[in-house]
């Protein structure tokens, strides 16, 4: 799983990217949602500055853009973590205890759904259905689908990421030392 590279960029950098992307686009209103999707792809979320930029592009008010963007579940307005955790809340997952899985992530990470941990490592959200109902309950981390989840598996996954991170950091300090 490749953690999104642009997760940790600052807003100025993101702004420049969005501005660049807008240059070649038509001002046809039907293009608004595809452009919001482009912004989300570039920035991993919809920054406020991008909303203003889009409003200028289409010559509509920022609250109109915001209204459309918030209507749809796809768009998020706070920066996601390096590892985006999505817990499926589809019918099959619910019947098999999806809410318990969400609760376990939430307890383990100390954040509620829709939030990001302070170190920007993890963000947690619920999704309606990822369409792998036969594997319920399901959690998606980054691009990887984890089926047949259980509370003990939640701990294992988070521990796995922490070990990975520790190892990477240790590798870095060792590199520094050898330099």
């Amino acid at each position, binding site marked *: 799983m490749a953690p999104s590279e642009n997760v940790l960029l600052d807003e100025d950098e993101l702004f420049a990217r969005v501005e660049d992307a807008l240059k070649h686009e038509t001002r046809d209103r039907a293009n608004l949602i595809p452009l919001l*999707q482009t912004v989300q792809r570039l920035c991993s979320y919809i920054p406020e500055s991008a909303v203003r930029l889009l409003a200028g592009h289409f010559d509509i008010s920022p609250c109109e853009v915001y209204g*459309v963007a918030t209507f749809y579940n796809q768009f998020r307005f706070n920066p996601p973590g390096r590892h985006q955790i999505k817990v499926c809340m589809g*019918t099959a997952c619910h*019947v098999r205890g999806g809410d318990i899985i969400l609760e376990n992530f939430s*307890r383990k990470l100390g954040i509620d759904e829709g939030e990001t941990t302070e170190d920007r490592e993890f963000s947690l959200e619920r999704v*309606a*259905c990822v369409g792998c109902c036969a594997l319920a309950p399901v959690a998606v981390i980054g691009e990887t689908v984890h089926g047949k989840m259980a509370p003990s598996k939640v701990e294992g996954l988070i521990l796995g990421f922490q070990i990975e991170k520790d190892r990477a950091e240790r590798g870095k300090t060792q590199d520094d030392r050898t330099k």
Partner: protein
Amino acid sequence: MTEQNEPFRIREKYERLRRKAEEVKAAEAGSDEPVITVAMATCGIASGAIDTFNSIKETAQELDLQVRLRTVGCTGHCYAEPVVVIDHPSSGFPPLMYHGVSSGKARMIVKSFLRDGDPLFEHVLGATTESEDFPGVMDFPRFNREKRVIMETCGVVDPDHILEYIAYGGYSALAGSLETTPAQIIETIRSSGLRGRGGAGFETGRKWALAAEAPGDRKYVICNADEGDPGAYMDRTVLESSPHQVIEGIAICAYAVGAAEAVMYIRAEYPLAVSTVERALEQAEQNNLIGKNVLGTGFSIHIRVFKGSGAFVCGEETALIASIQGERGTPRYRPPYPATRGLNGAPTVINNVKTLASVPPIISRGAEWYRSIGAAGSPGTAVFSVVGDVVHPGLVEIPTGISLRSLIFDVCGGIPRKKKFKAVQIGGPSGGCLSEEFLDVPVDFDSLREAGAMMGSGGIVVMDEDSCMVDVARYFLEFTRNESCGKCTFCRIGTAQLLEILNRITIGEGKEEDLEMLEELCEDISAGSLCALGKTAPNPVLTSLRYFRDEYEAHILEGRCPACVCRVLTAYYIDLDRCARGCDACVGSCPVEAIFTTANRKKGVDQTLCVKCGECAVACPSEYDAVRRVSPPSLAPVVPKPVTE
């Protein structure tokens, strides 16, 4: 549009393409090398099909074996994923289907079968072709009770190679349609009795006729793949596994109604479906099957993909159109129906993926053939995603009219773990929960509606005795409350109120008059809402109230959840007579460290810490089986916790 000598030219052009496809296929069949097919749709990938695929590839390279690796979409047998089919003609065995092939197992099978000639029968599900001396998969009811029309080519053709679909006979329906007149096509669809597979069941032929008759030069076709129902994923599977069948259906529809533009509205949450369809569109255009001047006829159809951003209400056709136009997806009053005033104010046909995928087979084989399948009132087949507590979950395509009992118990293998059947939920958030007495209801649009449920998009969730119906109703209401677009007051506020009452009941604070209030609110929401979301939102509550009223009463009057699901009303405790002294199996499993050791080295649960996740019940070794679940929580015995220094 068609000139006198046109039909001849269309056929000729198509046959040339077909010959090319068949030559490629014949060249492959001619060689003796084994063919390994891996099912790689989203659900297959989720179960690890990518690792399986790579492992097969590496093993074959390591052992220097000549094999041809193929990927197909989904076969619908989710319980068996990852599925691998090995066709090794020189071994003398028929093509064999393997199930649950992890990467390690794949390595073992490739080594053993392809190198040493032993197919490892213990991992084989069956042969995919009929053979005298080998049990075939078609001997299983999960296979032979199905009738595949919509999913005919799913898991059979490679979705990324248009020639495979053409070699299978694909696009011949389009070529055939272009030889006839639009009116004839509409007549065929009308007399086939095809009804919209999106849920409401409107007659497709009538919809097409309306759009064809509507005045206007610009007309549109929209393929609705905004599959929002939690628990339904057949549209995604069809698009990922057989995109060309849908594209062919769109092209035929466009020709019939006189449209030159089509939009495929696919959820952005389905990235694989989007990329598969985009590639398929490109290939179809390269082969002159869509785009300008299709097969030299002067008929043009431009198809583009619009990525839907995820709003349940956008499954409603007027909301979907608003969304394509860059607005918030709120429905508007109908009429005018989209067939007369739709996208950009032009006549628009909106059909579901499965409806459009049914079109090519109907055109090829005729209306009579289609009418002969399934129930009289709604002929044809229906695709269901059967999930929840069943032995063989997955996608099932059956002729309409077979009973729910047959679908759940014969086709899908019944309830696992020797549990009892309790209820079946059909049609997602707009459908209803049916109890055991409705198991003999035939599955078709009209019978289900009479029972209070609906076909919807075809999601079926089977629930065993461990499911709480109040909780299920609450779950669906939470979903519709979140997804209500907010336009109609009754839907926006009514669903919130319904949810609040249900929440209260599930935590044991329900009042006796709540049940009446629920019923009243349900009626008001249905009456006061514009679109199907609001009109059907109360269905889960109404049906569960009707068929499982005793459960509501147990929650309200006794503070007890009969299925021990509602967490505030349940407690876990450890049966000290069964708990083994010195065993620590449950301690590590507890995420909140609620399990303590008693004075005589057995275990107890600290009720103030317990979050009721049930992990200890899973962890407890089956020979002790000491973890108990009770409702109301006051039934749990109090085990003294030793005071630690």
